[in-house]
């Protein structure tokens, strides 16, 4: 630790006089950046308060480190802190001004020793299980064909990355590799950060693979923590774990959406569906071809059957039509023969009647001629008679004509309107009358009427 560099001790003058507070502050400035992980045994006296706990961390040489931890840090342990417990703590030292004591401020506390770790594991597992973190129905499904994979492991681990990539078949995967530590105090936070990073920056990724090689139970402690379980549970992207060897089932495995036993197994899980698909695609192709061929064969057979059937039906139909046609022609012939016979009889009868009609017409014609002759004779006689009568009438009429009377000296008297006067009593004194002569006429006024 380059403490001198951090606080720039060189520049402090030996003559400088500090107050106690100033000096403690000066020391704390040096101490607090000294983050470290220390292992030891929990001392006999543990002072637990509602929000925090004090205890001593001891080693075999009887050295004592006074420790302070907030409640959340203690509860991260999963089991109660007990005297004699082997633990390792991560944090930084600080001198409490009001007590003048050096206290190690704990940020993370972990158990050491397989037995106690197993105990912690069982307790935590039970609690998280009861809270539903491992419930199968809450697991996210792994897409059948993952293409984009987020790989979270160590670049320098025990070959987990190499194992995974080697066994990942060539199916056009896009692997986004996020390098994290998989062991030690800081690994937990790096892994959590990696899961968060993918969820924030590449949320459309198909799957996250969290993997590391095998190790003892102690080295797997980041994968047996409450924090990792909660982070895996909260991830929107499904997570496959491939942690350690086949017998090591960590809490992270239990929380994962799919648990692969090793990095190789995780790669195989992602590859198998693609391998199977490439085989199945050929099968599907074969099936489709044979299905469609089978359909065609069935249809062809059906068509052939219909064809045969249709020919048969058509033949029958044609024969029946032909028979009906023959019958029809026969009936028609018979009908025509009868008709012709009747027609012959009719013709004979007609000829007989025609002769009779001819005789009749001839007789009628002679009668008409005779009548015409008589008519002409009568006409001439009548004409002469009428002429004579007319002449007689004409003569009679000319004797009674008014102009003849006028010529003989008679006159005709009429009133001014032309009405012929036959009785003078029809007239009045002073009335004008007209007297017509054979030649001309006279208008006179009446003076006296007798």
């Amino acid at each position, binding site marked *: 630790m380059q403490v001198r560099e951090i606080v720039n001790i060189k520049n402090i003058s030996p003559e400088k006089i500090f107050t106690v507070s100033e000096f403690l502050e000066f020391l704390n400035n040096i101490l607090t950046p000294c983050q470290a992980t220390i292992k030891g045994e929990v001392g006999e006296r543990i002072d637990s308060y509602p929000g925090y706990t004090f205890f001593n961390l001891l080693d075999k040489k009887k050295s004592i480190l006074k420790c302070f931890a907030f409640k959340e840090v203690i509860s991260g342990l999963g089991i109660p802190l007990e005297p004699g417990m082997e633990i390792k703590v991560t944090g930084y030292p600080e001198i409490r001004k009001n007590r003048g004591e050096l206290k190690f401020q704990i940020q993370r506390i972990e158990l050491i020793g397989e037995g106690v770790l197993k105990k912690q594991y069982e307790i935590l597992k039970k609690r998280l299980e009861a809270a539903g973190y491992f419930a199968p129905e809450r697991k996210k499904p792994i*897409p*059948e*064909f993952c*293409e*984009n994979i987020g790989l979270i492991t160590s670049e320098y681990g025990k070959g987990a990355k190499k194992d995974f*990539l080697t066994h*990942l078949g*060539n*199916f*056009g*995967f*896009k*692997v*986004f*590799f*996020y*390098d994290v530590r998989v062991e030690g105090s800081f690994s937990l936070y790096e892994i959590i950060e990696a899961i968060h*990073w993918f969820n924030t*920056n*590449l949320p*459309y990724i198909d799957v996250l693979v969290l993997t590391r090689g095998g190790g003892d139970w102690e080295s797997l402690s980041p994968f047996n923590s409450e924090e990792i379980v909660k982070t895996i549970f909260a991830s929107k992207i499904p997570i496959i774990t491939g942690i350690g060897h086949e017998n090591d089932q960590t809490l992270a495995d239990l929380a994962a959406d799919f648990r692969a036993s090793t990095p190789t197994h995780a790669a195989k899980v992602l590859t198998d569906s*693609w391998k199977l*698909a*490439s085989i199945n*695609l050929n099968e*599907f*192709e074969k*099936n*489709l071809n044979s*299905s*469609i061929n089978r*359909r065609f064969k069935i*249809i062809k057979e059906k068509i052939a059957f219909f064809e045969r059937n249709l020919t048969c039906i058509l033949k029958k139909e044609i024969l029946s039509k032909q028979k009906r046609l023959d019958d029809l022609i026969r009936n028609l012939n018979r009908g025509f023969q009868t008709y012709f016979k009747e027609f012959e009889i009719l013709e004979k009868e007609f000829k007989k009647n025609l002769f009779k009609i001819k005789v009749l017409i001839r007789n009628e014609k002679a009668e008409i001629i005779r009548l015409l002759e008589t008519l002409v004779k009568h006409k001439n006689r009548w004409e002469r008679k009428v002429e004579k009568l007319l002449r007689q009438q004409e003569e009679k009429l000319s004797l009674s004509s008014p102009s003849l009377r006028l010529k003989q000296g008679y006159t005709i008297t009429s009133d001014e309107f032309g009405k012929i006067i036959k009785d003078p009593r029809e007239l009045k004194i002073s009335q004008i009358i007209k007297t017509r002569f054979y030649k001309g006429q006279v208008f006179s006024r009446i003076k006296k009427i007798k």
Partner: protein
Amino acid sequence: MDEKKFNFTKAYQEIEKINEWFEKEDIDLDEALEKYERGMELINKCKERLKKAENKFEQIKKKYIPKDEF
């Protein structure tokens, strides 16, 4: 189907469904032809996708957001 938007999972699921459909006894020939053509098209696309399969590897550098990859 647009090459860029080709989704292997969806195509594969559709092929599976078409295959199931062909298992039925009584099928319409026109529909069968249509489904056959669709099935073959998807199979070819899936095979194409499998042929072009070269894995790509990218190391994430924090604060680097390769959104263009999608």
